[in-house]
C-alpha cells in the first residue's frame, strides 16, 4: 500500500541528480535495490513509478529493480546463508538467534542520465 510513497522517494532522489546537472538533463534508468525482507511489492512499486513519473525528468526512465536476497549470519557459530525456512532467523546449525546480513535494502543504487537535445531546443525557443 505504501509503494506510492516509496516510488515518490525514488523519483525525488533521481530528479535531484538530474536537476543538479542542469536544465535539459533527463533520466534514462533508475536502478533500485529492494531487499527480500522489506514490505515492498515490486510490481506495485513499478506501477506507482510509472504513474508518478509523467512530467518529470524521469518521464522516459526505466525502473530497474534488483532484488536482494535475505541472508543471515550467526554471531555464535559463524554460519551465513539463506534461511532454512522463509524469513526464519534462527541459526539452522546451532539454534541461536541470527543477524541479518542482507535483505533489508531499500535504496537507489544509481541513475543513468542523458542531456536531451530536444529539451534544450524547447527551452531555448
Amino acid at each position, binding site marked *: 500500500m*505504501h509503494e506510492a510513497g516509496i516510488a515518490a522517494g*525514488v523519483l525525488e*532522489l533521481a530528479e535531484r541528480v538530474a536537476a543538479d546537472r542542469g536544465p535539459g538533463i533527463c533520466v534514462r534508468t533508475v536502478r533500485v535495490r529492494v531487499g527480500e525482507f522489506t514490505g515492498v511489492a515490486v510490481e506495485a512499486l513499478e506501477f506507482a513509478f510509472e504513474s508518478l513519473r509523467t512530467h518529470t525528468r524521469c518521464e522516459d526512465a526505466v525502473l530497474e529493480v534488483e532484488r536482494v536476497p535475505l541472508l543471515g549470519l550467526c554471531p555464535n557459530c559463524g554460519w551465513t546463508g539463506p534461511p532454512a*525456512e*522463509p524469513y526464519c*532467523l534462527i541459526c539452522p546449525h546451532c539454534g541461536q538467534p541470527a543477524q541479518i546480513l542482507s535483505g533489508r535494502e531499500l*535504496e537507489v543504487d*544509481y541513475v543513468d542520465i542523458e542531456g536531451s537535445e530536444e529539451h534544450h531546443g524547447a527551452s531555448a525557443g
Partner: protein
Amino acid sequence: MERVPVETRILKSNDDYAQANRRLFRQRGITAINFMSAPGAGKTSVLEQTLRQLDGAFHPAVIEGDLYTTLDADRIQAIGVPAYQITTGTCCHLDARMISRAICEFPLHGIDTLCIENVGNLVCPAEFDLGEDLRVMVYSVVEGAEKPRKYPLMFHQSHAVLLNKVDLVPYAGVSIQELEDNVLAVNPNAAIFPVSCRTGQGLSNWIDWLTRSLDLLRAPAVASGCV
C-alpha cells in the same frame, strides 16, 4: 549517457526526520514507544489498560494515528491522559514528519513517556522509523498462528509482541505455542506476552516488562531551556 552513483536509502528523508525526533526526545527526557498492529488487534485497548496500570511515577501522553477519526484519542482522553490526534487521510502509516509536526503543536511539558498508536495496518508502519525507542506490536490471536510467517516484517521489527485476545482462544482454536514459535522464528529476540484486554490476563507481565524497559531507557533531561 552517464552513470551517477546514488547509493541512498529511499526513505532517507523519513530517516532524517526520525533522527531529529529522536534527538528532541532525548533532550527532553522522553521515551517514545511505537504501537503497531493490523486494524482492530487491540492497540487502543492495550493503551487504555497499560496507562491505567502504569506506575504513577511515569507521566505519559499519547499520539494517535488514524485515517479519518478522533475516536481513539477520545478514548485515551477519557481516562485522563493527554492525547493528540493525527488524521492521515489516505496514508496507511505514520511517518516521522507527521510526528515531528505533531510534537510542535502538542505540548509535551512534564511528559516522560510518549506512546504513539500507529495506523492499523499489518505491513506499512514497520518500514517507517518515527524516532521511537521501543516498538511494540499487538497481534490478535484469532487471526491465526501462521501470520508471523506470512507478514514477518512487523513481528521482526518489534521489541515486544503482545498476543492479545487470548480469552478467545477456546473459540478460535489457535495454538498459542505454535504462534509463539512462529514469532520467535522471525524475531528470536522478541519479548512475547499472551494477554487479554477483556479479562486482564497476562497484562501484569507485560507491564512489568514495560516498566523495566522504560527505567533502563529513561535518560535525564538535558536542556531546560527548550520550548
